[in-house]
């Protein structure tokens, strides 16, 4: 039965329709795989009873010919998405044992379409991190290892549990969120496909907020097609999120296999960093050649403000986080530390409940928004953000359909290897992905090759607003050329 876990969503959909296996069998295979892979720490909560109940319901619907687009497909859900009556913590001690009395819009749409909840996935605390090391449940292990080495590597972050679970066949796909690269960087580190849709494409309602003008939900899956299938269910207008956009959701899967002939692909010169590893350079030019061979035209483009995206992000994101996280006060939910007056109660609860990275960001955010510093930091950063967005707009106005870049500056690294002395060292992981969040654009990371140590590397495609379809078409071309990569099972 274990081979059921290696199917893609598209293959499982076929197998369920042709009655080769049942949704219950498919779910049971995944539950067994999860149990055998606890060493990876990908799940922070397993929900086997709920999973079997949902799978049985899916089987009944499939038998009656009423199965939805995801009927019986078992998924993992990042612990940032509120799930009704199921513990949701954002992997923070401050949310300890929070049981939401409501369901996030994105997950409710997945259940509407018949998907099965396997459990909640690990992530960096409040999605702040690039290695999944800041989770209060401890780090996640990447199923990938360097050739001939037993060193434990990070799966990237913040959606590290999602990426690790998808790569290790512990779910067929997973939800994730991306504020500065949190879908695309872990996807690149685990040879999975991850897409951050255009800001406004997926409802943020019921997702624990980090930085509201940057956060966006998206899927992580094993193929471009599977990511497209999940996207269709996750996307859509929601009156409960005023930034959610009221435009029709296309059939993203129809974009898979569509010709990319004549498309203009921008290669931005500012992404060619000094000291960039040769293997990243090589991967990037290989990817460009694959797209060219498929009929696309390569054009060099310039995005002059690229280098300012990461510093501007580290003003905007902490500022918004400090304001969003003000709600954790020990009064309405979450951790409360006893104290003799209310101010001390707030201060002690928040000191005990937030981890180091979250505390650091709340403090820097508080500082840049404080009286006398707002103009110098926050206002300036929001102006720089306008310039970053304009760079992309100028590029698209010249007829460029999408932009090709590396997804990350390196392959996965070891646990405890980065950011110990200087937090900025960790932040540099998002150097290629963060521009996309600052401009609100869609970006996809697809596996494209391996480094000299046998670790996966990914390429990123950046698209025009609400043109995720082009990213799926181009992503598929890279997937066809590069092939798929599976982590050898050692756990």
């Amino acid at each position, binding site marked *: 039965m274990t081979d059921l876990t290696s199917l893609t969503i598209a293959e499982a959909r076929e197998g369920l329709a042709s009655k080769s296996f049942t949704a219950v069998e498919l779910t049971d295979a995944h539950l067994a795989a999860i149990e055998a892979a606890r060493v990876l720490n990908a799940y922070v909560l397993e929900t086997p009873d709920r999973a079997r109940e949902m799978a049985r319901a899916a089987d009944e619907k499939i038998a009656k010919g009423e199965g939805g687009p995801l009927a019986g497909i078992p998924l993992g859900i990042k612990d940032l998405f509120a799930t009704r009556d199921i513990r949701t913590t954002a992997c923070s001690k401050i949310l300890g044992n929070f049981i939401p*009395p409501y369901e996030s819009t994105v997950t409710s749409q997945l259940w509407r379409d018949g998907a099965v909840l396997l459990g909640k996935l690990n992530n960096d605390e409040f999605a702040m991190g690039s290695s999944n090391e800041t989770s209060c449940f401890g780090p996640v292990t990447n199923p990938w290892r360097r050739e001939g080495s037993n060193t434990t590597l990070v799966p990237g972050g913040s959606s590290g549990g999602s990426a690790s679970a998808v790569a290790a066949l512990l779910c067929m796909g997973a939800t994730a969120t991306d504020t500065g690269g949190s879908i695309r960087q872990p996807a690149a580190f685990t040879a999975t496909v991850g897409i951050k849709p255009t800001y406004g494409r997926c409802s943020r309602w019921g997702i624990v907020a980090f930085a509201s003008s940057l956060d966006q939900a998206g899927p992580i899956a094993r193929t471009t097609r599977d990511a497209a299938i999940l996207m269709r269910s996750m996307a859509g207008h929601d009156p409960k999120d005023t930034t959610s956009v009221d435009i029709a959701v296309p059939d993203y899967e129809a974009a898979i296999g569509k010709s990319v002939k004549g498309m203009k692909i921008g290669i931005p010169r500012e992404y060619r960093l000094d000291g960039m590893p040769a293997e990243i350079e090589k991967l990037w030019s290989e990817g460009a050649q694959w797209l060219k061979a498929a009929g696309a035209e390569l054009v060099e483009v310039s995005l002059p403000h690229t280098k300012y995206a990461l510093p501007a992000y*580290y003003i905007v994101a902490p500022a918004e986080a400090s304001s969003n996280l003000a709600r954790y006060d020990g*009064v*309405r939910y979450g951790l409360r530390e006893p104290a003799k007056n209310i101010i*001390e109660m707030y201060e*002690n609860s928040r000191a005990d409940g937030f981890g180091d990275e979250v505390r*650091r960001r709340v403090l820097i955010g508080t500082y840049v928004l*404080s009286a006398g510093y707002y103009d110098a930091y926050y206002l300036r950063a929001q102006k720089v953000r306008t310039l970053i967005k304009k760079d992309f707009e100028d590029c698209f106005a010249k007829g460029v359909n999408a932009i090709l870049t590396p997804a990350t500056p390196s392959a996965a690294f070891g646990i405890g290897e980065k950011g110990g002395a200087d937090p900025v060292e960790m932040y540099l992981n998002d150097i290629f992905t963060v521009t996309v969040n600052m401009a609100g654009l869609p970006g996809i990371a697809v596996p494209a090759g391996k480094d000299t140590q046998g670790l996966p590397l990914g390429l990123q495609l950046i698209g025009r607003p609400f043109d995720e379809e082009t990213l799926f078409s181009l992503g598929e071309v890279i997937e066809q050329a590069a092939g798929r990569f599976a982590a050898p099972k050692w756990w």
Partner: protein
Amino acid sequence: MSVDATTVRRIAHLARIAVSDAEVPHLQGELNAMLAFVEQLSEVNIDGVEPMTSVTPMEMKKRADVVNDGEIADDIVRNAPDAMNHFFLVPKVVE
């Protein structure tokens, strides 16, 4: 710009996060590393540039001014650390 120990304590109080004296030097170093990193923004010419206020150019939707939710007091207090009769309880604020 950089922050001194007094500023670190002031920010921590504004953020309502208790910080012990022993933690201040360490936090000060980390915050200054972040501030040094974002310092490069000062070289960007932002004359006449509008700050970004909306990621996607769109008009803010407004819902009809009607009651469409409520009567869920049990749900609201369900996760409270301390509650009584649908009220949240906190340490005494008014003498």
